Every structure is written in C-alpha cells, then in structure tokens.
C-alpha cells in the first residue's frame, strides 16, 4: 500500500516535472530572443552608416547634410538607443514588427513572403538531398573500402567541394544553353524550382553522405553488430538495426542543416531570382533596414531554438536511454 502511494506520488511528481519543463521552454525562448534582439540592435547601432543615408544615396546621388538630417529625423534616428529599442520591443509584444526603413512597407508581410519562399526551397532541397544521400551513405558504409564506397566518397568529395554558385551557373549553362530543357528565366513555375533546388542539394548531399557514412560506420563497429552477426542474423535485419540506432544522430545533423537552410542562400536566390528571406535580409543589411533585420533575427532565433528542441525531443524518442 505504502509502495503504491509512493509510486503514485513519484508519478505525479514526474508529471509536474514534465509540465514544468514544458512551461520553462517558451519562457527560455522568450528570454533568448530578448537577449539576442538586444545584442543585434546594439550591433546595428554601433555599425557605421544609417538607413537615411543608404536610402537617399542608393543610386549614387550625393545629398546635402540638411536633407540627410531631415530624413534621419523622420526615421527617428536621433532618439536615444534605449528609447528606440524599447519602442521596437513594445511593438513586438503588440505583434507589430514595424515598418521598413528602406521603403516604408510593413515588415511582417515582407518577412513572411520571403520566409515562405525559403521554406519551399529549403524543404525541397532537403528532401532531395536526403533521398539521395541516405541510401548512398548506407551503401558506402556497408561496402566500406570497396568500389561502391570509393565511388560514393568520390561523388561526395566533388559535391562537397563545389560552391553552389558555380553549380548554379554550370547547371544553367548545361540545361538552358546546351540541352535547352529549361529556360534561364523560369520563376513562378515548378521548372523555376528545379535548378535552385538541385544547386542547393548537391553540396548538401556531399556533406550528408560523409556525415551519415561516419555515423553508420560508428554503429557498425559496435559490439551488438558483431553479436548479431555471430548469431547469424540476416544482413537486412542488421542494416535496419544499424539505421534505427543511427537515426538519433542523423536527426541532429539534419536539424543543424535546417537552421542553415532557413537562413536562406543569398547567392542561389540572386542567381535564380528566388525572392527568399536570404536575399531580403542581405539587402536589408546593406540598406541598414533595422526593422527588417530585427524581425529576421526574431524569426530565425525562434526557428533555430524550436528546431533544436524538436531534434532533441526526436533524439530522445528514438533513443530513450539518454532521457535520464
């Protein structure tokens, strides 16, 4: 009876601990975002140049100091740093990311449009990359130091070494000029998605193959694999076990890549005229468009933290041993 009560108490305690952990996570996320936004706001404040100057001289036309100061006044750049940060933060709590200093348009729709485009590009390239890299990594690990392994490693080496801007131009030249199966200007169609996805996927596939192969090899050297072999377990079951046990680490590798992908690829977006968030933010940094940069920081900070938390949860779900 006492044991049952004690077990019941422990159960309730576990539940409340779990709830506490889930409550702590969003609070932690908010604190991270506040610290992050403050640091970025401070860095932008310290960086030379201001949005008024960038906006007025964007075409190389010089303006007088009076004109410049009037624009600075209009944008509120003469107000103290803390006042500006405080106003921005209050706006965020009200759900308003402000108005772009570059073109006076609301920040939220701009970021959301870019983010959606980037999510599409990132998801498609990640999917393609995983589809190719996963089986190749398994094959390379399984046939270690044999011809398939060498061939896959060579491919991975090439994929990893080629910068994606070079891949983009080579693809364009091959598919649009030589073979003529795609137009150079193809935004707004599935055709338009193909080349940027492949350009992003090739180097990513190279990296994934190496990382996954290393993980599979690590698993293959574990004692349980030797034990299974000695017990005469069929190879396909052995492979499935190895894959199952590698998934936790592979999930972490993918999660890290998602963060990078969501930052957008400025080069790919520029070359293929893909209006994603990377290009938007790069232009905003050049224009010192503080509200857009700050909005991007919030979104990316949230994505990074959430993806990592999900990867963490996924890792524990796949391998409960680490969940002490």
């Amino acid at each position, binding site marked *: 009876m006492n044991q049952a009560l004690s077990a019941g108490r422990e159960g309730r305690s576990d539940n409340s601990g779990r709830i506490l952990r889930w409550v702590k996570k969003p609070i932690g996320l908010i604190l991270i975002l506040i610290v992050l936004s403050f640091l970025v706001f401070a860095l932008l404040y310290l960086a030379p140049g201001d949005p008024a100057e960038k906006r007025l001289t964007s075409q190389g036309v010089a303006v007088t100091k009076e004109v410049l100061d009037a624009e600075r006044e209009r944008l509120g750049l003469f107000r103290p740093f803390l006042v500006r940060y405080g106003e921005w933060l209050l706006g965020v709590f009200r759900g308003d990311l402000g108005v772009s200093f570059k*073109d006076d348009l609301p920040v939220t729709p701009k970021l959301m449009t870019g983010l959606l485009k980037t999510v*599409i590009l990132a998801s498609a390239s990640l999917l393609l990359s995983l589809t190719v890299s996963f089986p190749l990594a398994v094959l390379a690990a399984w046939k270690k130091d044999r011809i398939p392994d060498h061939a896959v490693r060579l491919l991975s080496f090439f994929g990893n070494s080629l910068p994606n801007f070079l891949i983009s131009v080579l693809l364009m030249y091959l598919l*649009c000029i030589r073979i003529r199966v795609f137009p150079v200007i193809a935004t707004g169609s599935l055709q338009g998605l193909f080349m940027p996805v492949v350009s992003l996927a090739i180097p990513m596939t190279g990296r994934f193959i190496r990382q996954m192969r290393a993980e599979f090899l690590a698993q293959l050297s574990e004692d349980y694999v030797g034990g299974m072999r000695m017990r005469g377990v069929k190879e396909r079951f052995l492979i499935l076990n190895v894959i199952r046990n590698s998934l936790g680490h592979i999930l972490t590798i993918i999660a890290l890549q998602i963060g990078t992908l969501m930052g957008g690829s400025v080069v790919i977006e520029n070359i293929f005229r893909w209006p994603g968030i990377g290009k938007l933010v790069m232009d905003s940094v050049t224009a010192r468009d503080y509200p857009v940069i700050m909005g991007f920081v919030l979104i990316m900070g949230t994505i990074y933290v959430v993806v990592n938390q999900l990867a963490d949860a996924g890792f524990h779900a796949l391998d409960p041993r680490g969940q002490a």
Partner: protein
Amino acid sequence: MKKRVLAACLAVVMGMSLSACGGSAGTAPVQTDAPAAEQQADTAAETKEEPSETKEEPAETKTDEQDAQTESSGEKILHAAASFAYPSLDVHKEYYGWYTSIYGISEALFKMDENMNAAPCLAKSAEADGKTWTITLNDGIAFSGGNPLTAEMVVKNLKRLAEVNERFAYLGEFDMSASDEKTLIITTPEIYPTLRNDLASPECGIVDLDATTDFDQAPVCTGPFVISKFQPEGDVEVVKNPAYWGGDVKLDGAVFYYMQEDDPKLLAMQSGEIDCYNSVSSAALEVYKADPDQYNVVSIPGARLQFYILNEKTLDDAVREAVNLTVDKDKIASYLSGTVSAAVGPFNTGAAYGKVTVPAVDTEKAKTVLEADGYTLGSDGIYEKDGKKLSVNIAYYAARSLDTLALLIQEQLKAVGIDSTLTVEEDPDSTYIATGDFDLALYCMIADKAGDPLYFIDSTLKEGAYYDCGGFSDDHCEELIEQLRYETDSAKRAALANEIVQIAIDDNAFGYVGLFNSTTVLRKGVSGFAENIPFDFYGIDATTDIQ
C-alpha cells in the same frame, strides 16, 4: 502507417511548392486594369491613326517557346533585364521614378538628351526672368487615361513631390502657380538657373493625380507605355499606350525581368530570352564583342565617376603632385576592360563644362618632385624623409570596381617609390568620408545628374561640403562657386565650372580616374533602349523597336 506519413510529408512539400509558384499575397503580381486604361485612351484618341504594325519575325536566336509566344500573339514585345526592382511605382517617391521612366511609363517636363541637354518633353520651353520661370507645356498632351495635361496638374505634381521626397523638399519653397492651361509660373526665393535641369529628373515625372487610385501599382502617366503587370521588387510588364501624345509607339509592350546577377543575364541573352540590358559586366562584354553578328554593344562614357580625394591635411603638396603624376588612368581603364573610360575631369569631355586639362602621367617627374621636396630613395625602393618611409593610406570600399582601383593605384605608386596601405570600409560615408581618416580616399558617385556641373561642384569642392573631406579650400574657387550658383547663361556657367574644377586639379586635391561607361547590349535588330544617353534613368520609349 509510415508510408502514409511520408506521403503526407511529400504532399505538403509539393503543395507548398505549387502554392508558392502561384505567387503569394505579398508579392503577387498586380494585374492592373490595363484594358480599361487602354479603352479610355482609345476613346480619348479616337482621331488618332490606328497603329499599323506588321507582324515582325522574331529574332533568330529566340527560343522555340518565345517564338511561339511572339508568333501566336503577333506582337512586338521587348524582353529586357533590369538590375534593380522596387516595391512601388510611385513616380515621386524615393528613386522609383527612375524605373517608371525606364519602363516608359512616366515622363518629366524635360528629358536629358545624348548631349547632356535638358531637351523639351512635356514642356516645350522654360524661360527665366530673374527669379521667375515661365514654363510652357507642349500641345496635345494627354495622360494614358485620356485626361489632358494641364499646368495646374503639373503644379500639383511638383507640390506632391516636395512633400513625399526629401531630396526635392526644396521645391516646397518655390511659389508655383498655373497662369493658364498650358503655362506655369515658378518663382524661386533666389535666382535658380538649374530649374530646367532639375525638372528633367525622372522623379519630376507627371502623374494624373485625379485619375490615379493606386500610386504604388498603377500610376496614370503620360508615357508611351502603361503598366499591365507589376510584381513588387520583381518583374514588370508594360503595354503600349495607344493614345500616346507623342505619336506611334513601335513596340506593343515590354517585359522587364529583375535580374541582379551578371551570369544569368548573359545566359538569358544567349538563350534568346532577353533582347537587351545595360550595365554589362566586363566578362560578358568580351562574349558579346566576340559575336558581332548576334549582338550590338553600345558603350559611351556615363555620368558615374570614380575619383579619389587627396587629403591636404596629411599629404604635402609634393606627395599629392607625385601621386597625380603617377596614377595612370588609361592603364586602369584598360585593365577594367571597357567598363570605364579614363576621365580628365569629373565630367564628360563632350560637355561644355568638361573642358579641363590634367598633366600627363610622368613617373620620372613624380620622382623629381619628391626628391626636390627632400625625399630620398631608400634601399627598399621606397622614398623616405627624416627617417620616415613615405606611405599613403588608401581608403576604399568594395563596390563599383574601387577594390580593383585601390590595388592598381597601390601597384603604380609602389613603382615610383611610394608605399601604401589599403583600408577597406563597408560604408565610406560614415567612416573615412565623415572622419577624414585617410590619405587617399576612393569614391564613386554620379557626377552629372542632370546636365549641369553645380551639383557635383557643390558636393565636393565647396568648402565644408560633405565630400570636401580632404581639406581643399580656395577663396577664389569659393567666389566662382557662388557666381556659378546664380549664373543663368549656359556658356558662362560652363566657363565658370571649368575654371573651378581646374583650380582643384592644379591644387592636386583630387584625382578623377574614370567615368563608368554606360554599356548596353542589344540583340541585332533591337534599337532605342536609351543606349546613347549617358544617364541611368532612361530605357524604352516610343522609338524603341525590334526589327
């Protein structure tokens, strides 16, 4: 179950791809009511002759897809690449007017011509009498919606421009009124000789303020084209304005693809997807020049100047003179492979105010000048004085080929015994230009924005000007600048400008290195893409054609 999850994931990704390809709310192309506008214009121009365009054969190099498109519609559509794209078509705001002008949508009262003159456009004349300007509009001008252009509407436009564009806020100080339907009177607080040139700025494009309901996406203007599809910060499509006041418009329409990168533009030109573009890179230039049967390349000195400022507070006269005698602009222009023409002064030598002289490059004389000033050549080949090596701090930013320029100047200076260090900044205006922390500062800006020298002289040579950060100061020069400010006679203005710039050159305060060429590539048979006008803000007009 797992298969279902995988299938669901795939469906989500595909669904998102398709929805994005269809365009999102934020950037959805805006189909303006072009047919309605055309209908209005048709009504307004009933007496106008119907365009009698014959069906044109597409260029040989067009893709099959494009051939089919052109042939099926039987229209002459120009496809061009644009390096910039903006979120709005509001002619008066920011620099958006540059692009409505390039797209052939908006027109100003005057238009800069090939000789850098403000030629008549919507206005036929502008006469100054002291502080009062009388501007007379051309006859028969109507907006694409059919309303006639009146002097009252011009006044309203200029007032709006002063309100919404900080760079033109000064127009608010002018007293502007319409004396009749076709005449407006502008009275300035002081004599203002450059008003005619100012009114040629594309930001001064005239919009039908009464008929326009959406300034950002469908302004009603007087140009030969009207907007038919506008994607903010993306592609733009225009169709001809059949009621254009200036006569027949040769093209039926045009598409401007927003393409920032050079390589895709080259590839799109090669695949036949675009017909022309400007600001051609040096690498692409080589490709086009190698195939003159396919491409026509037009390169003229533009209005964008590469120059350096020599700091008079840190460099003595002899060093500044030696630097100017050493920097070889022709070699630099040659190295930059046709993208830049060697400059003499800040302005095009073809302009009346571009007649200045600079000493020829003479490295031996440069050495003599240094030695006469007490410098001796050290064992390492670098001059020194009082035990201190002669070293120049070259400040630059990595844009407009200034990074290459910095390296070339460093190399040329080293050859005569002047050592240098390079300091790169991301933002020159708030770093070395603001602080004056340099010996030689590289910069690039538009030197001639509307066919008059005052703007550049005022920005760089007037004492206290933002770009007079090297300490150049000359009393006589100041007097001449004040004279230039109020001189109304063009010839006298040119003479004054030449004298002012010559003083700065003789003082070795600056080095004017190169004028960026305005380089346009056109497929054979394409003409009239403002290829002979040295300003960045013109593109298609009524004469643009595809043979």
